[in-house]
């Protein structure tokens, strides 16, 4: 009970009013959107909102019959997983160099990598569009993979670098006296020791890749390369307007795996989201 007395506000009532109301703000829209996924279209865009719908699986049938939902899912998985692999292959050695070696320009190179995270996607949207058009990669999952990898590379590098900085130097010194080379040290000591950091980085990169919207919108011009994120924006049926129940279902299909991944790395989340700057 002591921990209750010590907590934030002195007044329990005030504290719980704040917490409960913010919980409602977070949860109610999600639950309401879930009901949207299980109601017929006639009960969504209406003059008077219907809070208790007639339950139906219309949206599910519509998704399966009218939209290649399995293809969107596959596109998302391929592009996201591929991009995370590219990121790890490039970022782990880079993080190792930034964390463990003294070399000229280290600070500047590190900051350059960080600064690419600040670039608005819109700034490079037009040139990237021309680049991929010229090499014939428009409307391709491979192009999305390359883009996602680029977007997240800075984040992944900095997160892993931060975890590598925490590994005691003694481990390495011992291996070095044993005659281990630099790459052996990276492979045998650094990578296993900072595995939580690597997993955190991979999960956060995957989430950002799943969410990516602007580049996907520009590069994927037909449903051949649509990911879940952009496919949503195309669930419209001409005069029918936006097909919200299908959108709701698809967004929950994407939500479930993300929730599981985040629960897995919960302890590392704040450190990962700040690219290692905050040791939460």
């Amino acid at each position: 009970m002591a921990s209750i007395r010590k907590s934030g506000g002195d007044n329990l009532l005030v504290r719980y009013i704040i917490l409960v109301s913010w919980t409602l703000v977070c949860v109610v829209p999600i639950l309401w959107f879930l009901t949207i996924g299980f109601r017929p279209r006639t009960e969504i865009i209406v003059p008077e909102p219907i809070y208790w719908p007639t339950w139906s699986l219309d949206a599910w049938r519509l998704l399966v019959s009218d939209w290649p939902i399995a293809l969107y899912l596959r596109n998302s998985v391929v592009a996201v997983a591929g991009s995370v692999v590219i990121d790890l292959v490039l970022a782990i050695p880079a993080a190792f160099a930034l964390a463990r070696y003294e070399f000229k320009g280290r600070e500047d190179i590190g900051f350059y990598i960080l600064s690419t995270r600040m670039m608005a996607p819109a700034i490079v949207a037009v040139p990237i569009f021309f680049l991929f058009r010229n090499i014939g990669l428009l409307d391709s999952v491979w192009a999305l993979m390359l883009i996602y990898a680029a977007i997240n590379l800075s984040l992944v590098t900095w997160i892993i670098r931060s975890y590598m900085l925490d590994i005691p130097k003694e481990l390495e010194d011992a291996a070095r006296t044993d005659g281990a080379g630099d790459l052996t040290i990276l492979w045998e000591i650094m990578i296993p020791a900072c595995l939580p950091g690597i997993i955190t980085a991979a999960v956060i990169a995957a989430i950002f890749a799943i969410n990516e919207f602007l580049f996907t919108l520009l590069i994927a011009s037909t449903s051949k390369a649509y990911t879940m994120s952009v496919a949503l924006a195309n669930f419209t049926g001409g005069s029918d307007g936006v097909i919200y129940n299908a959108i709701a279902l698809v967004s929950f299909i994407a939500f479930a795996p993300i929730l599981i991944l985040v629960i897995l790395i919960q302890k590392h989340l704040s450190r990962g989201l700040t690219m290692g700057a905050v040791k939460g």
Partner: protein
Amino acid sequence: MLVAARLCRSKSMAHLSQKLEKGAAKAAPAAAVYSVRRPRSAAAKKMFPYLLVGPAVLYLLAITLYPGLFAMYQSLFVVKFVNWSWAGLGNYTRIVQDREFWAALGNTAIIGGLSLSLQTIIAMTVAFFCYRDPFVRGWRIIFLMPMLFMPSAVAFIWKLAFNDGRVISDLLMSLGLASNNVDWLSSVWLARLTLIVADVWQWTPFLFIIFVGALQGQDEEIEEAARLDGASWSSIFWNISLPMMRPIIVVAVTLRGIDITTMFTNVYIMTQGTPGGATETMSYFIYRQGFRMFNFGYASAASVLMLLITIVVAQTIVKRAFKSGKS
């Protein structure tokens, strides 16, 4: 050969762990397990870190420097599909007189600024009230949920709630706060408000999770001592927690600020810039010029200007934020 190398490695790992167990990692005599290892020249040693960091840097250069240069080059032309005609600085002289460009810049600042302030205040309040709560683990994952939805899905949630489904209007009416259906896209500030609500709802958790981590990391004894001295919780917050968290707040708010200024998805799905461009952000401006009106040269000029702003901000605010965050 490969098998031998692998054997070698596992042998050394066994050595290593043995030594660590003995707690004499440094004192133990060097055992030459690696017979294959050749000593490298000084030059090769110097090059090694560059080889490690090189591929990542080249990849990023390809995706930032090349597009940057391309945008600069293209911004000097009027591009009509495949025809590029030289325009010199024409695009730039036009853009600095373009009311829509300045409006987009202003909208980005207004929507982003309000949204960021609200998120920071809410996240800080909620974090401060629950960081020593015994049930905080449970709260935390619930508070995180909005962040775990795809942004395009979140945009549709709020588009439906505000506009297409009229749910918010209905709730306001039943609370007696509105007399008839509110048309959220009819007024400048109401339209902006819908974007702010969507952004605050989704991204307050980002700041919350970071703030809670920071608060939990603070020294409990200092807090307890202050409490025994009769300090109220608000004075503990202002005099102990807040100063201690300052570097973390700076990093978190900076990161969030960067993302807010690139706001695109919500605008694309919820408002498309209506009414009269009042909700058009910089990202949407570039998108509209380039991919709706096909003024690629003009869009590139806007990109270059936005890039300049980004570089200035990155060099000043962000560099400092990350330096202070590390210490």
